[in-house]
């Protein structure tokens, strides 16, 4: 760059709070940010996941106590709150998984990288994740 070059405006860091509300996000953008959000949710709830594995595997007694947590809760935390956390994990895992498959598909297939596929696969991802979450969530909350 020469000394005479003008100082051009640089767009460096992301300012989510300032900029995001002014964008119209296409379906692919929603799928992408939900992919990130679902990942972060699972990261935050990772100790809870390992705790569930621990309690369920240690012994018959701990297994029974573990299943009781979802009915009776622990201390002042009610059972349905634990079920809600599991529901969040179910959606997070499903969306993250399906969106991840979408990523892999677009990595492997050049012909898949076009605007139409981007939109259709994004909508499919969101729908599959939500539908399966409803199905599994209904089972979780004892609706069938």
């Amino acid at each position, binding site marked *: *760059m020469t000394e005479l070059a003008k100082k051009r405006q*640089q767009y*460096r*860091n*992301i300012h*989510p709070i300032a900029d995001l509300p002014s964008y119209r996000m296409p379906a692919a953008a929603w799928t992408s940010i939900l992919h*990130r959000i679902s*990942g*972060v949710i*699972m*990261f935050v709830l*990772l*100790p809870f996941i*390992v705790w569930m*594995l*621990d309690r*369920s*595997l*240690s*012994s*018959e007694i701990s*297994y*029974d106590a573990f299943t009781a947590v979802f009915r009776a809760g622990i201390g002042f935390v009610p059972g349905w709150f634990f079920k809600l956390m599991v529901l969040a994990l179910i959606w997070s895992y499903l969306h993250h*998984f399906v969106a*991840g498959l979408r990523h*892999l598909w677009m*990595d492997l297939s050049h012909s898949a990288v076009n605007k139409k596929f981007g939109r259709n696969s994004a909508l499919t991802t969101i729908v599959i994740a939500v539908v399966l979450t409803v199905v599994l969530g209904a089972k979780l909350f004892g609706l069938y």
Partner: protein
Amino acid sequence: MSVNYGSKRTVVGAHYGLRDWLAQRGTAVIMTIFTIALLAQVIFSRGEIGYDLWAGIFASQWMKGLTFATLISLAWHVWVGMRNVWMDYAQPIVLRLTLQVLTLAWLAACTAWGFQVLWRM
């Protein structure tokens, strides 16, 4: 042109990016195999899903090995993902490096706990 070298170098930990990009895909494949193996054993089991069935699934050596591989894969996969998140949203270096270290500690603790659970029974 932005100054991103010397003392103004942005330390994000991403380097060239190819290794981690590939690692995310590879670890994802391993975790998918684990998910299918686990789901298949649960769905095609006979009888009630109780402690015996559940603990029985994780009792075999091959399942323990697969779960072990999954835990390690998970740690790497999550690290790359969270490093990207911090890289995008945490600009001050002190904040970002602190979050990265805490993330690593969080992941190390969860992974170690997972090993502990796996080999306790």
